[in-house]
């Protein structure tokens, strides 16, 4: 094995990238060294994804220079990035789900070359064995777990001779145990003198895995902590420094906020509800209570939320709102009774991007009075309604006629909250309410949820962000494999009990 070169393997100098209305990266300098795990830390929207997009050849910088071993390069395409030895593993996965592991590994090879399936499989098996991982090369990718897919992608990068491995939000889809395994894998890669770049917004992971931490905020590099400081200073000091850099002293949430909910009788009761791909689920939410539902993404939370909202048919069991069974009702009827659902897929299903804000605010009551008379649209009441909600929920939009797709993620979320929380909400289901939002919008969204609960709304908060749940929830249900494996009160050691439930210990 060659000794790592003295200088950085990759150097970024003055990198700037603008998108319409946003500066994603503002004169960022970054050095990536062989044999190190380099953590890029920042909130959502801090510019991390754009930065690695440039390393991976998906995005071109507007200004600045990228150097590989001191030589200025233009990473014009993913192919070029691979040739330079930069392999990237993206958050959403870049494997074709219908192909097998071995087939995915050979993607990108010139099409006329004969396909040496045996050689590919042997190479992959050998590599897996070296890292103590077992994945069958003949398995179809769609059948693998998210963690396994990620490992396949990492090994694919290694098989291609990558010297730099970029991992984009690699831990967000993993169980705590999966995160630990990934940590071990990254250590091993660094020991083999690879450069590993881990992108994350989680402070704990940064401190745990990083040899070097770079903090980004609003597209600018605001701090860099080298290996010496990370080794020498104690973790509390480091933590404070990083928090200060990430949030500019505004604080990143803090501990659970005590709040006197107007607790009452059960508003939403779920009794043995069976949803697609899951088993019977039961819980109750009182007026003014926030029930958190924690769990790794893809464990049936979405199906549960959609079944509660009436979008998906229940296979069994009952849902009661204020004691009335609503299992047989459709979305509209449930909404009129006060059951609301704030989806996390804001542009995909929550809104119609090309429609104005005003109509999106009425998307779930099309045809209702006073906005439609005899089925005819009444522009004035519609616009007035929109203006009122835009003001009440502080939506930053030029006007009620602006297409929703032109708004930022935070403002689209405000439109959704305005629609679902206004007009007689009794019970509200939030699905990953702050997913993809920046710090300020995250804070304002959480405040809205809390205020609504304070006003007596029974709230179900589905989130994969444990900190969010611990901040807002009164009780926490943990979901795994389509069922609720335990419900715990949000008190002192809730975090560790939830983590144990998520890892598979039943309560």
């Amino acid at each position, binding site marked *: 094995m060659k000794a790592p070169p003295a200088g950085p393997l990759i150097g970024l100098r003055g990198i700037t990238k603008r*998108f319409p209305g*946003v500066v*994603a990266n503002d004169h960022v300098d970054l050095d990536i060294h062989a044999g190190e795990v380099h953590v890029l830390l920042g909130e*959502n*929207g801090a510019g991390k*994804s*754009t930065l690695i*997009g440039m390393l*991976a050849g*998906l*995005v071109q910088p507007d200004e600045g220079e990228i150097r590989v071993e001191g030589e200025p390069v233009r990473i014009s*395409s*993913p*192919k070029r990035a*691979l*040739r330079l030895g930069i392999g*990237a593993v*993206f958050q*959403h*996965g*870049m*494997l*074709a*789900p*219908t*192909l097998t592991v071995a*087939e*995915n590994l*050979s*993607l*990108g*090879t*010139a*099409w*006329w*070359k*004969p*396909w040496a399936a045996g050689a590919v499989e042997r190479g992959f098996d050998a590599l897996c064995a070296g890292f103590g991982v077992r994945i069958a090369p003949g398995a179809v990718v769609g059948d693998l777990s998210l963690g396994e897919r990620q490992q396949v992608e990492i090994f*694919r990068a290694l098989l291609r001779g990558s010297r730099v491995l970029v991992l984009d939000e690699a831990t967000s889809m993993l169980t705590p145990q999966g995160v630990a395994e990934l940590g071990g894998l990254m250590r091993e890669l660094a020991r083999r003198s690879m450069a590993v770049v881990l992108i994350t917004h989680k402070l704990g992971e940064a401190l745990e895995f990083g040899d070097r931490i770079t903090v980004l905020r609003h597209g600018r590099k605001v701090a860099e902590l080298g290996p010496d400081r990370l080794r020498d200073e104690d973790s509390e000091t480091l933590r404070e420094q990083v928090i200060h850099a990430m949030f500019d002293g505004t604080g990143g949430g803090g501990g659970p906020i005590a709040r006197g909910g107007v607790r009452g009788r059960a508003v939403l009761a779920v009794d043995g509800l069976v949803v697609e791909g899951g088993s019977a689920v039961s819980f109750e939410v009182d007026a003014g209570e926030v029930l958190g539902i924690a769990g790794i993404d893809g464990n049936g939370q979405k199906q549960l939320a959609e079944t509660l909202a009436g979008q998906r048919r229940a296979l069994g069991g009952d849902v009661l709102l204020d004691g009335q069974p609503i299992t047989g009702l459709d979305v509209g009827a449930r909404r009129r009774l006060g059951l609301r659902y704030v989806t996390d*897929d*804001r*542009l*995909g299903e929550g809104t119609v991007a090309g429609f104005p804000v005003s109509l999106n605010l009425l998307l779930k009551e099309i045809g209702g009075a006073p906005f439609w008379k005899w089925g005819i649209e009444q522009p004035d009441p519609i616009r007035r309604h929109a203006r009122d909600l835009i003001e009440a929920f502080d939506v930053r939009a030029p006007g009620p006629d602006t297409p929703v797709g032109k708004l930022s*993620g935070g403002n689209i979320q405000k439109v959704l909250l305005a629609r679902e929380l206004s007009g007689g909400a009794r019970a509200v289901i939030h699905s990953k309410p702050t*997913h*993809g*939002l920046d710090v300020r919008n995250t804070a304002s969204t959480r405040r809205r949820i809390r205020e609504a609960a304070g006003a007596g709304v029974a709230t179900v908060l589905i989130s994969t962000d444990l900190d969010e749940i611990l901040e807002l929830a009164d009780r926490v249900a943990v979901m795994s494999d389509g069922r609720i494996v335990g419900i715990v009160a949000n008190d002192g050691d809730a975090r560790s009990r939830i983590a144990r439930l998520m890892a598979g210990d039943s309560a």
Partner: protein
Amino acid sequence: MDMILSAAFLTSLVAGMVVSGVPLLLAGLGEQISEKAGVLNIGIEGMMLAGAYAGFLGAYQTGSLWVGFLYGIGAGMAVASVMAVLCVRLGLNQIVIGIGLTLGAEGLTALLHHVRFSRSYPRLPGVETLPLPGLAELPIVGSALFDRHPIVYLAVASAVVLSVLYRRTHLGLTLRAAGDKPAALDAAGGDVIRTRVAAVLCTGAFAGLGGAFMAEVGAGLFVPFMTGGAGFIAIVLAMLARGRPLWVLAGAALFGACLSMTTALQVAGFDVPTDVIQMLPFAAVMAVLIVFGRGASLPAALGSAYVRGGRGSDGERS
């Protein structure tokens, strides 16, 4: 029943099946390439028609069917290249452009035919065949199947070759990835746009050849609008074959048999109205769709243009 199963009926049915089935086979194989790569090629009817006219023209001018086939391939690819530029490069709506190309090819070939041949209505001489030794002497089906122009054998062989290519080379992988998860192909260093452009051009070549076969071998002349929806049947064939070329072969045989039923029944002494018989292949498609439709899997990215780094629905700015 004896009448139906008479030797004359069977021979004529199988012979007709080959004549009507080969264009479907070629066009279906071509459409399959596009669909695998994620392009729904509605313009294939126009590509066939262009191929039919050019094939006839080439064969008529030079006296060589093979030159005609080359002309047909070229014309099909010319139409396909418009589709490739507009739909793959520029990412325009594949359905609208496909319909536009079909209309344009219909109009243009009819116009050209009118200007050149409307007074003479020339016919091509009979097709020379290549009897396969041994097989061609088989009773009933021998001459119908194995005493044919070599292009028939090549068409069947191409189905086999394609199925090997799909399974044993990177071609299949690249095409499938371009259709199922273009971003994965791009990230792996493949070129989605180039793959799809190549796929659409291949479709044009196959469809053009299919059209040329129709005019040169099938009819021996060109008639405006002569493809009569064969391209659309090819789309369905490709869809139902779920990426397997040999299934296209089987389907083309089936539909070819349906199409040739009229003549065969007339040979057997039945007078069944043409219009009723013409419904057979389409009715068969509908029946198949009703029964197997739910299983007719199409690539996930079919019909949508690929833009690198295009905004996903996951909210975060990249």
